[in-house]
């Protein structure tokens, strides 16, 4: 299978690559729009700030090519937030392929960022949530999140529920890091790789 990891220049590219290699896939890391378009599956990783990541995608002229992809695309962490319309982090327009908005996580009195292993709760039947038999813990590190809405596939809570997984058409997002979420994360990545083109 031909999997391309989009090189956003600010991401944990190596850990995503190694996670795929542990699943027997040799991915290509690329910021070339023609190469990305050819892939069977595209992964958009991300750490850092939404503003910096969108600036990098614009400089690489990847905004439109990414919006036009038709194969399954998975955004991870910040990469998931980039799939939405806007992010409150830096108040920046994002790719807009999933009609949701990223807001600051309301942690109440809990430590922020939300860091560590938290439980996922599937809220919709979907090829990406079929492995989520309770209890499924995944590793989160973030202080912004997509509120629960029409495109939510699974939630987690800190203390308020937020979207742990989202999806619309051929675009999917995971707020946690499946590449660092032990056996559960490996199953979720494998489920994504097994998805049929929409």
């Amino acid at each position: 299978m031909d999997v391309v990891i989009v090189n956003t220049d600010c991401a944990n590219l190596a850990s995503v690559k190694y996670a795929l290699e542990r699943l027997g896939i040799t991915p290509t890391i690329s910021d070339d729009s023609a190469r990305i378009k050819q892939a069977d599956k595209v992964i958009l990783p991300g750490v850092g700030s939404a503003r910096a990541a969108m600036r990098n995608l614009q400089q690489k002229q990847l905004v439109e090519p990414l919006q036009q992809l038709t194969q399954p695309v998975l955004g991870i962490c910040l990469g998931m937030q980039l799939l939405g319309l806007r992010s409150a982090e830096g108040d920046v327009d994002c790719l807009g392929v999933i009609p949701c908005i990223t807001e600051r996580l309301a942690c109440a009195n809990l430590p922020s960022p939300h860091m560590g292993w938290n439980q996922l709760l599937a809220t919709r039947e979907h090829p990406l949530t079929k492995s989520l038999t309770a209890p499924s813990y995944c590793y989160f590190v973030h202080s912004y999140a997509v509120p629960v809405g029409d495109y939510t596939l699974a939630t987690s809570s800190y203390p308020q529920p937020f979207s742990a997984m989202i999806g619309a058409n051929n675009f999917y997002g995971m707020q946690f890091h499946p590449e660092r979420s032990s056996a559960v994360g490996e199953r979720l990545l494998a489920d994504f790789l097994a998805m049929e083109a929409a």
Partner: protein
Amino acid sequence: MLAKRVIPCLDVRAGRVVKGVQFRDHQDVGGIVELAQRYRDQGADELVFYDITASADGRVVDKSWVERVAREINIPFTVAGGIRSLAQAQQLLAMGADKISINSPALSNPELVNQLVDEFGQQCVVVGIDSYYDAEQQRYVVYQFTGDEKRTQATTWATADWVAEVVDRGAGEIVLNCMNQDGVRRGYDIQQLADIRQRCAVPLIASGGAGSANDIVEVFKQCNVDGALAASIFHRQQCTVAEVKQAMQTHSIPVRW
């Protein structure tokens, strides 16, 4: 619910994992990747690797093993030791480290915390703090260069003030190492950790003093820390990570299985 993290700490010296008592008399306890795999298999939630000599003798961490760990393990890990520049941090993160932890260099150049946060984001910047109870002054004081006993020295920072300073500069997590407890396995410094917890708005990890699974249970129950670091009890195979989590669960502390 967010699980409380159990974090084996691997002190690295010259490419091997070592363990000292109050930072001295280091003994070899095994290979880096071999121990990382063992703890992953036992259910460790995260790993921390400290190159304990790096800051003190002016080197940066020997990095070749970071990539091997990143390839092998499917849980997050932090690398610490002598990270003084954005370029050094960038290299470690590019090799697959999830977080970088700075300690002595932050004390020498506090602005480094801001620079790292601006460049890589708050989520991957950890500040490690070595805190010692000074009985004469009757206060907790931050120490620097603790990797080398010849250069170890007290700073002018009171621990609570330094925590406030680095959180204000954007640190995403604090590892508080209570030096009086380190390696002596008599339990964590409950009083200090409970006090700092009140003042720390970011995740707080307890370090120094774990001698039994029960010590780890107590630090979660009494201090509400987010994670507990321990070394000797795991390296000496006194108990496994799974046994610690079993004890935590018995006391209704949320754990990940």
